[in-house]
């Protein structure tokens, strides 16, 4: 049965503190869209039109409320000089970070009189997947942009920084060379802003994803010292455009959930955290997005999924600022279709609000 509101109308009401017909539906259908369409992953993330078509097909099938332009978080690091390999049936894999050590990165950035990442971005476009992203956004926007918000995932500065330097060196640097980390973060923050401007012009709503800033990697103190300030700078920039900003951090965010609103995010997307706990911590300040366990989505039966999702939605609807029913992280590639359909059914059944029929 057709619904009274389009996804865009539904989201539009949510972000101006009005109650829509039901909670928006947002399983993080990223690279899964390729699996759904039977397209090799490499084609998905190297061809903009393919990425968009897969997204459109998956959305058509599931009738979700957003299009997700995304493959993985390496896109910005790659544009800034890290090297990735492109397996046919897997997502890009970081093969060589731009710098081996933080000191090398620092020396390079100091040597450049103006280490402007936007010029780096301009320098690299032939070799990066920026064009893929922008083409995908444009294609999806022209196809369905009047009815469905197009979301483009932008890797946060902290996550990008980790992919520019050898991981071990970066993690040790958090402890013994914080000033070098901050210097690198300044660079990646500018890069994220430059990239997001292209995305904004193309018609997509940028959302900030910072998987490597999760509680599984950083302590709350480290999050506050390194990741949060750079997230805030990007979000502040997006607020110049009056955009409703989503911040997504995967993994366990229990320790940092109360810090996340300080980034300025309007909607906070969470993964492995008790939803009630998140709601109590930040529900008065931000809209919550989350957080069905993606392992369950992959491995549980449809009946179990429906039951659990209903419970989650009823809990999420208690969020005073509004709620979006989502998966905690990206939908696993091997997720059975019937499981996703169970997720969608349950959200639509349990997510309704009292809304005029006509």
């Amino acid at each position, binding site marked *: 049965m057709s619904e*009274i*509101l*389009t996804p*865009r*109308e*539904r989201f*539009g*009401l949510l972000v*101006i*503190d*009005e109650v*829509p017909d039901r909670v928006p539906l947002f399983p993080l259908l990223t690279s899964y869209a390729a699996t759904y369409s039977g397209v090799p992953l490499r084609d998905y993330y190297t061809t903009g039109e393919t990425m968009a078509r897969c997204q459109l097909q998956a959305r058509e099938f599931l009738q979700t409320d957003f299009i997700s332009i995304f493959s993985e978080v390496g896109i910005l690091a790659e544009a800034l000089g890290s090297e990735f390999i492109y397996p046919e049936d897997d997502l890009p894999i970081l093969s060589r970070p731009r710098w081996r050590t933080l000191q090398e990165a620092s020396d390079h950035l100091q040597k450049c009189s103006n280490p402007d990442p936007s010029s780096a971005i301009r320098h690299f476009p032939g070799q990066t997947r920026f064009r893929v992203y922008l083409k995908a956004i444009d294609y999806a*926007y*022209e196809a369905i*942009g*009047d*009815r469905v*918000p197009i979301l483009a995932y932008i890797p946060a500065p902290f996550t990008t920084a980790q992919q520019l330097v050898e991981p071990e060196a970066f993690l040790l640097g958090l402890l013994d060379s914080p000033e070098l980390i901050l210097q690198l973060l300044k660079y990646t923050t500018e890069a994220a802003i430059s990239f997001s*401007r292209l995305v*904004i*012009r193309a*018609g*997509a*709503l940028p959302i900030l994803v910072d998987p490597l800033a999760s509680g599984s990697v950083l302590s709350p103190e480290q999050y506050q010292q390194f990741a949060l300030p750079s997230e805030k700078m990007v979000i502040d920039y997006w607020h*110049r*455009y*009056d*955009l409703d900003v989503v911040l997504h951090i995967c993994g366990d965010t229990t320790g940092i959930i109360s810090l996340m609103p300080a980034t300025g995010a309007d909607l906070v997307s969470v993964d492995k955290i008790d939803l009630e706990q998140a709601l109590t911590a930040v529900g008065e300040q931000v809209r919550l997005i989350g957080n069905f366990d993606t392992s369950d989505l992959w491995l549980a039966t449809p009946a179990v999924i429906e039951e659990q999702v209903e419970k989650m939605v009823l809990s999420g609807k208690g969020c005073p600022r509004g709620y979006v029913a989502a998966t905690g992280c990206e939908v696993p590639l091997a997720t059975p279709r019937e499981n996703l359909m169970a997720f969608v059914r349950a959200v639509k059944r349990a997510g309704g609000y009292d*809304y*005029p029929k*006509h």
Partner: protein
Amino acid sequence: MSYQDPQPARITFEQWDELFARIPDELIDRFHYFPPNSFSWSKYLFPPQTFAIYGARHLRRLKFDNSLASLRLWGFVNNESERLFRARQMGKRVIAVMGDLGPLAVIVNSFPDCIPFYPDCWWWTPFAMESKVLLDAAASLGIGEATCFSRAALGAFAKHSYFPDPDLILAATGASCDDYSGVESLVAKLTGRVKWVETPLRLSGQNEQLIRFLVAEYHRVVSALEDLTGTRLTGTMLKDGIRRANRVRHLTSRLRQLAYQHGVLPALETMMVEFGCLHYYSDITEWTAILEHLLSTAEFRLKNGLLVLNPESLRIAWLTPPADPLLLCFVEDHNARLVATEYVINQALSIIDESLPGLAGIARTTLAGSLNGTSAQRAELLITQARTNQAEGVIVSGILGGSHCAMESKLIAQHIKQRHNIPILEFDVAPPAKEVDRQTRTRIEAFLEVLRSRRCQKS
């Protein structure tokens, strides 16, 4: 805070983004709707990119004036939907006024904390979004392609997501658009709570009688608003409402004059200015401030010889608003400019006589307006302006499916041909699309060629 307008120009969507990057944060923070409130959500100085991201796809293809005042105008116009919801959240009464294009809003606006808006204006939405969503919603309620694009208003009512459910719906019928009267009837059926107001056709020799009739109708409107708000409308309140409406109309009149006589503002922005006289984009105080800003920009440009349009470009008069704003850009891209317009909203542009009793003053202006007169009278309104500003051609755009357009466009064209030796182009505006359709494009181009060769012959 330093920001100076660049050399006047019509710029693209991408160019506005470049320009916006130079606008200081303090300036973005300065402008709020519903002043003197300054909530974080009431800012509106945002570029076309913001609204494109939220679905206004047409913005990517338009050309805009590059002044700060125009950016302010666009930001304000584009967030009207949000503003109406916020008005409700702030405890204001939101009143839908329909069909009379201007006068009822003056009365509503005289009541404290009452916000009038014309759902009629949602006819722009399918074009702004390049979308059939609202038109499909209207079709599902029984009004399809054989009707004017104003049917989008019905779709908007049905969805409850473009404006809050109004506290009161006032619908004018009689001397109004035929199709829109049909839309109003369906809104009445949908909502079950429309208060009808009859607006009569102007008839020679019966003016005083008709004014008395219209004043009686307006008294019913006042009573409905008094019942709703619990506030009695005093003469002073009404006078103040009229004075504020007249302020908007004076500013608009001067801006039209500067734009059409001197080319200091493009046609698109000038059209948005004209339509602001209908209901002030739901916030008369801020809209007035925006008009003042635009006027100071226009006067500065004129004083310094900074024109945005080529003064030598072809001079065009345009009759009936082109539902698709891209058409105005298209004409200007082809080195022509508008020097006269008759958008059927003359009753919202004319100054209300403040020496008369309030409702009588409004009624008199209403009856003299373009909506309440004959086709010939509309043609005369345009001819007067066209002569003053030496228009070289007239474009009459009809609305596809608009029942009155099929007949009226012909009558108007005939009248203009008989009275004024000037070439005329007539066409119907096509349904929402991302570009001007090929046939219309060719016809406009050919028409402009004709005007160019006529000019050469004369010279």
